[in-house]
């Protein structure tokens, strides 16, 4: 008798949990799906925020999938989502790594789901060979690294003359590689600037702090610190603060997190480039929806509109205050009628 009770109890408990956590859901509406890499940082979470705002406006359900850096989970969760919605969905995805795009494409093409991909894809794989892959969009990582390096060099005591140290992101990552290339391009154009040493800090604030502290012990007289993203820039600034050089020696970042704007205002960060993931997810989902409704035909879209780069917003001391007020602290009504408004170049 006790055995039966336990089963019933367990089942009821589980059922209660599930029903409490399950949002109301209808099959006949297209679900907006965003797949991101993790919930613990603002850049990725803002994809979700953008999608929720769009879903509210259009009256469509939104589903957020988080891969937690696990490629296999990414594929399995997408398939679970397809099972859940019966394939009535559109997807905006930021895959873990380039190779993940191949199985993702297979899964979504098999299910006939329209989708837009961000950042990473293998060079050999092109949206034009997939009927449901509406677009691959990315930022020009090299340009970002270049812009922030140039802005950093300007802040030197003698502009464009001096030495820098660099803090790299996750070494296997395309954005990290591109941004570092941009730094090297800036270095080549400014022979007066020397890169003394670089270390990897895996996009992590703490690691960047440790690495910077050590690099500063080895090279106490640097004129600037280039970092591959804002998270690491914050760590570098914290390390500089302890040698009381923060402000005199500036740091550059990329991404546009709130701390970075504060740091620009404080005068410790020279510049960053903001990538608006709220816009990214709204653009991607809108394009995929348009393709699903027949308003956008991927097969007749020219190649430069299937794979392209868009521009971020370059933020430095000159525009930081207006930018934070007008763009960052509000959820702007993006103009989503022109998909290619931010288009800068083809990505292939």
């Amino acid at each position, binding site marked *: 008798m006790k055995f039966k009770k336990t089963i019933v109890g367990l089942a009821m408990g*589980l059922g209660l949990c*599930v029903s409490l956590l399950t*949002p109301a859901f209808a099959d006949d509406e297209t679900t907006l799906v965003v797949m991101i890499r993790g919930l613990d940082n603002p850049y990725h979470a803002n994809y979700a925020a953008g999608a929720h705002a769009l879903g509210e406006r259009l009256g469509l359900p939104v589903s957020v999938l988080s891969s937690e850096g*696990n490629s*296999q989970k990414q594929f*399995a969760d997408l398939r679970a989502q397809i099972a859940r919605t019966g394939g009535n969905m559109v997807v905006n995805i930021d895959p873990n790594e380039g190779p993940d795009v191949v199985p993702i494409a297979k899964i979504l093409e098999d299910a006939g789901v329209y989708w837009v991909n961000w950042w990473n894809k293998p060079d*050999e794989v092109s949206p034009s060979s997939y009927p449901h892959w509406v677009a691959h969009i990315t930022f020009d990582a090299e340009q970002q690294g270049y812009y922030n390096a140039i802005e950093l060099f300007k802040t030197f005591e003698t502009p464009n003359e001096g030495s820098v140290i660099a803090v790299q992101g996750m070494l296997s990552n395309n954005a990290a590689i591109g941004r570092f290339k941009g730094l090297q391009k800036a270095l080549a154009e400014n022979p007066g600037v020397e890169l003394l040493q670089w270390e990897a800090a895996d996009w992590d604030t703490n690691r960047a702090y440790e690495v910077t502290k050590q690099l500063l012990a080895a090279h106490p007289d640097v004129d600037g610190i280039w970092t591959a993203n804002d998270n690491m820039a914050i760590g570098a600034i914290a390390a500089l603060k302890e040698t009381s050089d923060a402000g005199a020696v500036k740091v550059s970042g990329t991404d546009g997190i709130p701390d970075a704007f504060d740091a620009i205002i404080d005068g410790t960060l020279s510049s960053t480039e903001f990538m608006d993931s709220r816009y990214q997810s709204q653009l991607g989902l809108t394009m995929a929806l348009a393709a699903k409704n027949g308003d956008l035909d991927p097969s007749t879209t020219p190649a430069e509109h299937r794979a392209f780069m868009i521009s971020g917003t370059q933020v430095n001391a000159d525009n930081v205050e207006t930018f934070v007020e007008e763009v960052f602290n509000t959820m702007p009504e993006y103009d989503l009628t022109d998909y290619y408004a931010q288009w800068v170049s083809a990505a292939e």
Partner: protein
Amino acid sequence: MKNTTHMGLGRRVFAMLPVRLQPVHLTIFMIIVLGTVLALANSTFLSAYNINTILSFGAILMIVALGQMFVILIGGIDLSVGGVISFVSVLFVLLVGEVGYFAFPICLFAGVMFGLINGLILTIVKIPSFIATLGTGGIITSLAYLVSPRSISASPSDYGYFELIDGKILGMSNSFYIGVATFLTLGAFLRFSITGRNIYYIGSNIRMSWMSGTDIVRNRCIAFMISGGCAAIVGIIISSIRYGGDPVVGTPYVLNSIAAVVVGGTALTGGSGGIVNVLFGALFLSLLDNGLNVVGVDQYFQQALLGAMIVFGVAVTFDRSKTPIIK
């Protein structure tokens, strides 16, 4: 009346039943309960498409976990599986372009060799496996980075090799069949070979087995080699699915494989458990991950719920009667 003081809630309940219960029965019971709840919450949970998802991705986790189980059976642990998977995923893509089909045996061999090194560090240098494999795992990951610091993708002319594994037979993904084959092979090995019996023997009482003349070095090394080999198989599968590799792809498998082994009812102290436990342990985790998404549980709850279910799962299945001291 049985003495029930050393039993958990689940086992105490089951002690009233006439059948002789193994931990694995409790895992199966949990899977049935969970499956029923999920199926009631969303009918698509039991669609053929979704079952294929659960089984084919569960199979990949199961293969790593099977290898992990051999090491756990001898009372060790293998934290290097993540490194091996990452390394092989890169190596396989590079080799396929150069040597074609020979990439399969070479990668498998590399995995087995890494396992052998782990085994030798444990048995000859006499360093606990937790530390030995933590160290070699770091070294192997570094090797993967040195071979290819960024993700690499296969050139389309080599796609044929990858399609061997990334395909379907009778509507099921090939990774499922590889999982079944690995399961049967290792099951037969564990059940019928002398080495298989010795592995249990060493795990349950190493001093006794040493005194009775069992070759401890050889058997422990074999356990690690199986783990390395299984990790290499998963590296090849992951590569084949993605037509590419990268040096971080294996990281999540370290803790997930251990969780699968333990949720299935295998004790970390060694000597108890078996492949059927691992099968259902991996199935349970795969089912849970899939189910939370199929019924649409908020992402913000999923990590916490997953952790709670692992603890809950072990609380129910863990066989306390064999290990009076729980560390």
